[in-house]
């Protein structure tokens, strides 16, 4: 009965009969949130129309009321019924008036993959386009995207680059070239030549490298490289970096791959798509030393000895059948109009009206272009067209084509392949067909793109490699270990997804994923090789789960100190899914948290102010509990305060760590184990958060109020089996709401 009444009240949200809400606000809110006090910079004594139009404000009000954060404990409290009714009314108002899934554009990652998948090439287009930002939520969500004039310029430039590379004026001349030791060059820092070998000994950044000045890439294309080399003084696998850039000046190098190499391999082979003028060089990334003080010839450590290089290319681009049908000389596409229609269909999958085609054709014909120029022009036009750049989904429910496009965008960051297109109807109408297709798509290596993109945006893994650990303090940390740390969450997620393991593993697991570098770092026994493998952990091991991963612990620290606050925020934001917004009007003074001072004491100052304590009561204990993990994620027994003496020397001062802290509910945490226990108890919130992230990513929009019910539904269907992850993903895509915008 009550709900019908409130529904009637809410239908016209400008109605002056929203009495319960305004009575409530006048009774419990406006004493502090009025013109005079404006606590937290917020006024609630504003006209009704204004208040009800601000959906974000309403959401905020519902949020703080539901969590009992407002009114503050010491102030007059509403009755549970009063509170509930207001929450209900405001929730309904938001639901009725919010915009769901604003117009989405393809991200630059998608742009890159779509072009490469369509034409079966490996162009590097990402850096030509401006970055899509994702500070809050995913960058594929329309409400976070913008399209600036600069981006438009770059789309034009990128389209031109694509058409010129794929359809150049001259046909390419395939060549085979071989180079020997006399052609090899380095920087004479740690490298040397003998009669029959060029030897690299060091990994001095931006210096040590092997390049071939005579190797000139004259035209765009794919080139095959084959180096004959062996490893000296070691039986271990080595990692060789492949870089592009002017080799005389290695600070310009762009690392494009890191390849494992074993002596038994004898040859290092790889393919690179290069532009005219590109230069390729190799670096010895797994070298254990940066410089060789004594003569490099006398160095007894591992070395790489190069003998020969063979380069072939450019190799002919094998355009897929779909494109060949447009580009080959068939009589069927004899008019400009037909060509335009064909290109639009091939890239955007939809048809455009004859009127539109005629308009474009007229403009192209007016330019008097050759046939090849015409083809390039049409392609460029399509690549800049709103039909290509935007995803025009139906306002309420997606059609078959858009549903398939959504699946491909979600799981592959790209467009549907021929097989998915041929099953588009079945997949739309039949859940079994849908499940089978999704399983196939997950097995396709293209699904790695989704996992890498999702993890990078969810856990901000790109920050892991931003800071290099200070060599004076962390003498044994190798850059390959840092790189492995950045990949660990991806492999972990992949393992849980592909093997349909429980999502509880994100909180704590009895295994980790690591390679040789990372297993050494974590001291979990020896893993062979550069590839990541599952390693079982003994009972009670510190590691396991997301919050014990070195990458997280490192990215939330700076060069010498950890930041418990950053760690607490990371956990609350990414694991719990809480919105973390710093308070508006507070001058936050940078606390000096260098080792020796009692950090706990300093952070307890947060308790002095209600404004601070609201969030810090949650943040601080989580961070403090992790203080036994140093700035690179290793376990430590004591704080080590670092004082810099000069560019070579530092001094340490040790002091004890007090990592005990009390949560808001009175529970104590003090270390990784107790913290994981708390997370375990909160698993409902956490699992729902992970499901929500996946949902938001897959639908390319922020969650709205209705979605929380769907997440709840999915959560409960997964509960009996303990939240198996692949099942979760399948439950999500087969849910009827997945077809909704």
């Amino acid at each position, binding site marked *: 009965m009550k709900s019908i009444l409130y529904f009637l009240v809410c239908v016209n949200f400008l109605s002056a009969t929203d009495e319960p809400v305004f009575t409530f606000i006048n009774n419990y809110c406006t004493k502090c949130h009025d013109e005079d006090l404006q606590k937290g910079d917020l006024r609630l004594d504003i006209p009704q129309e204004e208040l009800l139009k601000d959906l974000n404000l309403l959401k905020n009000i519902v949020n703080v009321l539901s969590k009992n954060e407002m009114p503050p404990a010491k102030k007059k409290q509403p009755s549970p019924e009063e509170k509930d009714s207001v929450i209900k009314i405001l929730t309904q108002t938001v639901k009725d008036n919010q915009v769901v899934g604003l117009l989405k554009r393809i991200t630059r990652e998608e742009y890159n993959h779509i072009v490469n998948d369509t034409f079966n090439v490996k162009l590097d287009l990402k850096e030509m386009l401006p970055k899509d930002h994702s500070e809050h939520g995913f960058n594929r969500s329309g409400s976070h995207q*913008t399209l600036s004039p*600069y981006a*438009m310029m770059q789309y034009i430039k990128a389209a031109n680059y694509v058409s010129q590379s794929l359809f150049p004026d001259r046909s390419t001349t395939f060549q085979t070239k071989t180079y020997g030791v006399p052609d090899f060059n380095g920087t004479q820092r740690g490298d040397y030549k003998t009669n029959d070998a060029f030897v690299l000994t060091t990994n001095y950044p*931006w210096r040590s490298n092997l390049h071939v000045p005579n190797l000139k890439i004259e035209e765009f294309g794919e080139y095959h490289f084959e180096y004959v080399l062996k490893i000296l003084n070691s039986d271990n696998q080595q990692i060789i970096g492949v870089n592009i850039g002017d080799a005389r000046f290695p*600070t310009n190098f762009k690392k494009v791959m890191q390849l494992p190499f074993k002596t038994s391999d004898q040859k290092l082979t790889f393919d690179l798509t290069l532009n005219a003028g590109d230069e390729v060089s190799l670096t010895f990334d797994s070298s254990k030393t940066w410089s060789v003080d004594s003569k490099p010839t006398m160095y007894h450590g591992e070395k790489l000895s190069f003998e020969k290089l063979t380069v072939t290319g450019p190799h002919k681009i094998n355009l897929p059948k779909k494109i060949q049908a447009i580009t080959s000389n068939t009589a069927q596409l004899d008019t400009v109009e037909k060509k335009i229609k064909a290109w639009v269909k091939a890239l955007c999958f939809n048809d455009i009206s004859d009127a539109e085609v005629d308009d474009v054709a007229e403009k192209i014909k007016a330019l008097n272009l050759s046939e090849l120029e015409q083809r390039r022009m049409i392609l460029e036009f399509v690549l800049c067209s709103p*039909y290509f750049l*935007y995803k025009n989904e139906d306002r309420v429910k997606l059609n078959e084509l858009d549903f398939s496009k959504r699946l491909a965008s979600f799981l592959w960051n790209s467009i549907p392949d021929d097989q998915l297109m041929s099953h588009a109807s079945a997949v739309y109408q039949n859940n079994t067909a849908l499940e089978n297709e999704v399983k196939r798509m997950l097995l396709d290596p293209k699904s790695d793109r989704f996992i890498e993109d999702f993890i990078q945006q969810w856990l901000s893994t790109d920050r892991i490699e931003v*800071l290099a650990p200070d060599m004076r303090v962390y003498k044994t940390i190798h850059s390959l270990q840092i790189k492995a740390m950045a990949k660990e969450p991806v492999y972990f997620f992949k393992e849980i997804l592909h093997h349909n393991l429980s999502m509880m593993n994100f909180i704590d697991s009895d295994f980790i994923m690591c390679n040789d570098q990372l297993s050494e770092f974590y001291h979990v026994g020896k893993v062979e090789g550069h590839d990541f493998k599952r390693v079982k952990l003994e009972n009670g091991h510190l590691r396991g789960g997301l919050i014990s991963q070195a990458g997280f612990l490192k990215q939330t620290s700076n060069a010498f100190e950890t930041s418990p606050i950053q760690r607490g925020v990371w956990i609350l934001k990414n694991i719990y899914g809480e919105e973390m917004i710093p308070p508006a009007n507070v001058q936050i003074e940078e606390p000096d948290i260098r080792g020796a001072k009692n950090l706990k004491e300093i952070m307890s100052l947060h308790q002095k102010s209600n404004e601070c304590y609201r969030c810090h009561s949650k943040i601080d204990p989580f961070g403090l509990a992790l203080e036994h993990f140093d700035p690179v994620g290793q376990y430590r027994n004591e704080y080590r305060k670092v004082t810099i003496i000069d560019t070579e020397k530092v001094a340490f001062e040790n002091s004890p760590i007090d990592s005990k802290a009390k949560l808001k509910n009175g529970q104590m945490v003090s270390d990784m184990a107790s913290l994981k226990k708390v997370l375990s108890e909160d698993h409902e919130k956490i699992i729902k958060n992970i499901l929500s992230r996946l949902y938001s990513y897959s639908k390319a929009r922020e969650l709205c109020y209705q979605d929380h019910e769907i997440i709840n539904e999915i959560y409960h269907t997964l509960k009996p089996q303990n939240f198996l992850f692949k099942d979760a993903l399948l439950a999500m895509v087969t849910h009827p709401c997945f077809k909704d915008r």
Partner: protein
Amino acid sequence: MNRKSILKSAGVTLLLPNLLSAGAILTPPKKRLFTVVNHLSFYQPALIPKTEGRNYEQTALLSPFKDLPLSIFSQLDNPGVQLGNGHTPSVGILSGFFNVLDRKNKISFDQIAANHLGTETRFESICLQAGTNLNFSQVCWNRDGLPVYQESSPEKAFQKLFGIEQSQAIQNQRLIKEKSILDMVSAQAKVFQKSLNQEDKQKLDEYFTSIREVEKKLLKEKYWVNRDKPKTNYKPENFPILALDHYLQTMLDIAKLALQTDSTRVVTLQIPFWEYFELEDKKDHYHHLSHHGMKEDKVTKLLNIESMIMSKISKLYQDFCEIKMGSSSLLDETTCLITAPMGSANAHDFNRLPAIIAGGNYKHGRNIFTNGKPINSLYLRLLKDLDVPINSFNHEKSTLEIS
């Protein structure tokens, strides 16, 4: 920040350039920026006066500037710098940031100025380097964090300013094609828009706005393609590639020409990492001298080089003074900065940096010990005074006062 302001700041608001004729049209004075970065820095005991404030005592390296008012800052901190290998943090001098493990950076302050001041000139900025060593030489970084190409060849720089590159016909063809594409997609977008709901229609506005702005940019490009480049009698001379003084002089000449012809209003010149060089027929090793270890003879030789550098720069400033632009001089209209990425090249100390400012219509004359203030505060002050509408540079909101 609402969408429109994001677009405006990212886009190009175009005013077709005013005719450049000295004094003929009353136009408000233009603002310009000229930055010199000396990679191997300066021997600070001979650069920074010992007394603070006005009436500071002259130093050996500043004596060439005795008739030119300067503002001298020292002890500046570069907040983004970490211990890098050798010289690597030097690439962060103008951006106040360096990411050691990646080849990317954040936008440098001169490029922010270029984005803003460059809308009326053929070139947004000209970045030069007086030396061939490109290692650690990127000091100019664009909005995507990628290096802006720094021209090390005087011939190519000269050609860019005064020579004919691609034929006008080819360039015009390209512009016509690009305009055509914009027309086609614009027409398509109008159709596309019809199928959208209200909120999505508004979102698509970005697309239309961007197209319009790019059209303006193409118009601007077309304007410059079909407009002759300025003429000059100057000819860059041939000089031995190791002749540091000739190299520097030529690049300074080119910088002057670039500003004088209003080809650009932002010029950044780096004297990069120099190893072997020739000066007055003597061959030596600049890098080795910069590691003087306090040895007197090395310091003397080092000061020889640095005096030559300062002498040439001060002569350039003198020339700026004598070049009339309307009712003011080029020096008044140009904020001139000299800085270096190391406080002491001898110790590879990337903090305690010096910054010397001339021109720009400031009331110069003070020597200021900043005691570790961030250099980004100075950059922010300069940008604000160049009328760039920003409130912070690389997270720095405070500014250092100049006059």
